């Protein structure tokens, strides 16, 4: 085990330029992947903000008795899709209108009768903020005789659905493409290291080293390079993120960086690439000689 680490570290010391180059290459490959992931993460974050605004409003017929309202309120709250139900009385609706629609304040003041109906405002649970669920809930609400009208911005919710699907597909395709490019570049880098050490490998074989023994230090070296590259790419991503955020303070707010688990995933991806690239390159080299 100690020998394994010594041999792996030795290769960094013996070929610092090539090792540095490998780490930098890996870092930049992962940097492009990371940048793309950042965009994807922020896009999802933005969509989540939009999703939270999905709301169903059921307007209630004037003169519905309060006990009916209470019972209905409990019924609706028991729907599996529903997160919260708020009953907004006619007075509350008027009060809100007066506060929010300043330009009509005068008009409202002169009213002798409140024109605004009472309503249920219904928010859906996280997994149900889509067109299908909203429509299902709306259908069920139509069953209540005292419900006059239902609004949930159908077009808007449907568009949100499409956007979400599109973002998912595009994210997956571009992400996979970037990752594939990173894999190829990392593989080539590691192949270079192995060619540089072909003589050493041949001597190892000559003195009776097993393939497993020869592979060990290379795999560890690849994993270490992946680790360093991953960490470096996180630094680059953060620098890029700060730069972008600071120059767009006015237009884009609420940009987020990776969560710790996402950072971990990027680094783990780097390590996995380093390992995988080494495994393939060493394996091929050992088969060919």
């Amino acid at each position, binding site marked *: 085990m100690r*020998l394994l680490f010594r041999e792996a570290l030795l290769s960094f010391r*013996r070929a610092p330029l090539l090792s540095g180059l490998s780490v930098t290459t890996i870092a930049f490959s992962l940097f492009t992947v990371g940048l793309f992931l950042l965009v994807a993460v922020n896009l999802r974050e933005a969509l989540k903000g939009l999703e939270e605004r999905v709301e169903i409003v059921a307007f209630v017929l004037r003169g519905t008795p309060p006990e009916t309202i209470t019972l209905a309120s409990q019924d609706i709250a028991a729907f599996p899709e529903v997160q919260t139900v708020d009953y907004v009385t006619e007075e509350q609706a008027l009060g809100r209108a007066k506060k929010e629609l300043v330009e009509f304040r005068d008009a409202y003041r002169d009213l002798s009768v409140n024109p605004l109906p009472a309503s249920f405002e219904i928010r859906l649970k996280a997994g149900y903020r889509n067109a299908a669920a909203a429509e299902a809930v709306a259908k069920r609400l139509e069953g209540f005789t005292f419900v006059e009208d239902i609004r949930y911005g159908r077009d808007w919710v449907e568009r949100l659905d499409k956007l979400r699907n599109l973002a998912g597909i595009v994210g997956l395709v571009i992400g996979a493409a970037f990752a594939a490019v990173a894999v190829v570049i990392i593989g080539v880098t590691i192949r270079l290291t192995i060619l540089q050490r072909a*003589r*050493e490998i*041949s*001597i*190892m*074989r*000559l*003195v*009776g*080293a*097993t*393939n497993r*023994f020869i592979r060990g230090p290379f795999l560890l070296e690849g994993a270490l390079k992946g680790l360093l590259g991953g960490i470096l790419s996180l630094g680059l991503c953060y620098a890029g993120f700060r730069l972008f955020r600071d120059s767009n303070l006015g237009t884009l707010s609420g940009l987020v960086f990776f969560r710790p688990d996402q950072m971990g995933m990027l680094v783990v991806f780097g390590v996995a690439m380093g390992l995988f690239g080494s495994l393939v390159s060493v394996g091929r080299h050992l088969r060919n000689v």
Partner: protein
Amino acid sequence: MIRFHNVFKSFPNGALALKDVTFHVSKGEFVFLTGHSGAGKSTIMKLLFAEQRPSQGDVRVSGFAVSSIGRGEIPRLRRRLGVIFQDFRLLEDRTASENVAFALEVTAARRDTIPARVMRVLTQVGLAAKGRAYPRELSGGEQQRVAIARALVNDPAILLADEPTGNLDERATRGVFQLLREINAGGTVVVMATHDLDLVRQAPYRTIELRDGSVVYDSAADEPQEEAVP
């Protein structure tokens, strides 16, 4: 120890590197393989340490059948052999001791025994004082001695030497050759490929001469203990 029986080896282009080669080497022998470049000496060497497999025929080395040896067995065969080359094949970025120790490390030898074993073989080849020198700091003869020490450190039954003196001046050649004779005197089989006929004439050892891939002369062929070539 070594048995070649009707061995053919063809190159990828179809030309024959070895044609029907048969010879046996017994315990304790010192054998010269001679012949011009391209006669097949190196091919025989490569078959002996399972770098290549015969196209046809049977090659047995220290109990291993090279013709059918599995990939996993090759390292085990090589640990019973010591191999040295004209170009020494030392790792330039390791000291003499480290080069020798390397051969033990790859065989998973017990770590605490390594320094003593390295010192023992370096002493045997006369380089006890130069363990910390890098190959570039050593003369050609000294580098070949390090290579010999590396080959010996696993206590091989057979030492294969492919043109070991090809890059050495006369004095170094004599030194290295003397060392190989001492190793042989200790009971190790030595097979030495060389085209240095002066060297061959100096010593009363068995000589197998190759020409165009065939054995054209074997000084042991007349001796009674050797099996007749069919």
